[in-house]
């Protein structure tokens, strides 16, 4: 039983017109993301990985090709609130408590008061921030703030989670911890996750599928299906299997650069 892909891009292109001539942020990108996948996008700056994610979110308009999310256009999917988006910065509102920040999308989407309370408590527990509901963002560390922003993206009923380098600004140790947590969270919620990163170990550790991209023009150079089991302790990063996938990702990145 193969169901239709959750996200499907066909020869997707996006060209920005700048004063220095056109910039091909994406060129002929085709990719299917299946339900329950954890897909990482990795590549150097300018390879279009964030642009691709923003196309899925209907935050950028492609200039060629097509993209569907949940079988409908990206715009319709956005209006149906089909995804939660986690940005590189937590972007919590300083004038709202952690609970208030998580409640924000729920208020906008018109969830009932009782439902809001229940959902805030549930997602706070999910990101291990129970007890911090009444704290203001400045009272939390950077890693905790980012967890709160993930909780905010999980609070409403969206099956897709789009994450744009959510841990990029955090230090290595916090990052390891959050990666572990994210995997647990993914297993519990069974969401489809698209994850942009430029860390090779992070991409390999998290993903079921790694998409290697390269710049000028932004394109996909390799798609690697992970052979790692779903259950992944942090130590898995020292196994030969892990290192082999990491090696292949590195090769893919190097190949992309060789065309320059």
């Amino acid at each position, binding site marked *: 039983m193969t169901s239709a892909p959750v996200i499907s891009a066909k020869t997707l292109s996006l060209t920005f017109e700048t004063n220095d001539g056109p910039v091909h942020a994406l060129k002929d990108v085709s990719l299917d993301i299946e339900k329950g996948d954890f897909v990482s996008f990795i590549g150097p700056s300018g390879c279009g990985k964030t642009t691709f994610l923003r196309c899925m*979110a*209907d*935050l950028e308009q492609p200039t060629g090709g097509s993209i569907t999310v949940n079988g409908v256009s990206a715009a319709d999917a*956005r*209006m149906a*609130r089909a*995804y*939660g*988006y986690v*940005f*590189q*910065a937590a*972007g919590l*509102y*300083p*004038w*709202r*408590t952690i609970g208030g920040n998580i409640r*924000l*999308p729920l*208020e*906008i*989407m018109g969830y009932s008061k009782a439902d809001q309370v229940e959902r805030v408590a549930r997602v706070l527990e999910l990101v291990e921030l129970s007890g911090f509901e009444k704290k*203001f*963002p*400045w009272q939390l560390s950077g890693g905790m703030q980012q967890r709160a922003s993930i909780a905010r993206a999980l609070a*409403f009923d969206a099956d897709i989670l789009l994450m744009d380098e959510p841990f990029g600004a955090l230090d290595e140790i916090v990052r390891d911890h959050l990666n572990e947590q994210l995997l647990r969270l993914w297993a519990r919620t069974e969401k489809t996750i698209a994850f942009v990163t430029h860390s090779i170990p992070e991409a390999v550790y998290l993903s079921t599928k790694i998409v290697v991209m390269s710049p000028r023009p932004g394109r996909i150079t390799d798609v690697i299906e992970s052979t790692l089991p779903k259950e992944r302790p942090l130590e898995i990063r020292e196994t030969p299997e892990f290192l082999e996938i990491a090696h292949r990702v590195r090769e893919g990145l190097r190949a992309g650069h060789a065309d320059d």
Partner: protein
Amino acid sequence: MRLVKQSFAPVLTVVGLLLVIWYAAAVWLNADWTYDKATRSGEVVTTSSLIKDTWAQKKPKLPAPHQVAAEIWSTTVEKKITSKRSLIYHSWVTLSATLLGFGLGTVLGTLLAVGIVFNRTMDMSVMPWVIASQTIPILAIAPMIIVVLNAVGISGLLPKAMISMYLSFFPVVVGMVKGLRSPEQMQLDQMRTWHASPSQTFWRLRLPASMPYFFTSLKIAMAASLVGAIVGELPTGAVAGLGARLLAGSYYGQTIQIWSALIMAAALAALLVGIIGLIQRASLKRMGMAQ
């Protein structure tokens, strides 16, 4: 206690320094008159008699601080507030116009800022006029407003408040446009991912984000508003208000009266701006945004 010491010591030092300069300047500026008098009566002026006389003239060029203080005391504490010679009565006249103008200016400024932020046409068309309005000298336009409104039968509080509004809406427009545009692109994108309506984005993101800018604008607007009310009182024939006291004082060479009105105006401005500062502190703290 240490905090009180820390914040008061520098202020008191400056006040002390100003008083010293003020007293010295009073001697210097009023000396001519003392020498004139002495020549006419054939007296000899010693240093002590010079200081004594220059600090106690009836119509000095620059009254000494204690003369102004005595005048303020006698026209506030020792007069009934209903009396036309009470400085409190005159302050109230000016204050009422200031507050009405400030209120009107704040509402007008905020509405214009909202229009400018949400409507591109308004951004292009209104903003240049807002800026141009402030290049017109208020002293030139104030009599026109008073005369024109008088001609259509509006007099008293409202014309003065209009001039206050004219001066006070500007900082509010500029501050609020900046404040309402202060959310980052990322925060606006985030609202878009939730399919938030423009009004939801306004009430939940833009407006709260603009609050620090709003209060800063209000402080400037309040001071401008007071200046507007005083200027508005000058061409009305000096009936009542601090502006009227200034004008009447200058007609009759009552420098002590002028200075006491000036000090009163300054104290009023400090008080009003201080009150806004307190409200700012309290509300930003409640919002978790206190700096």
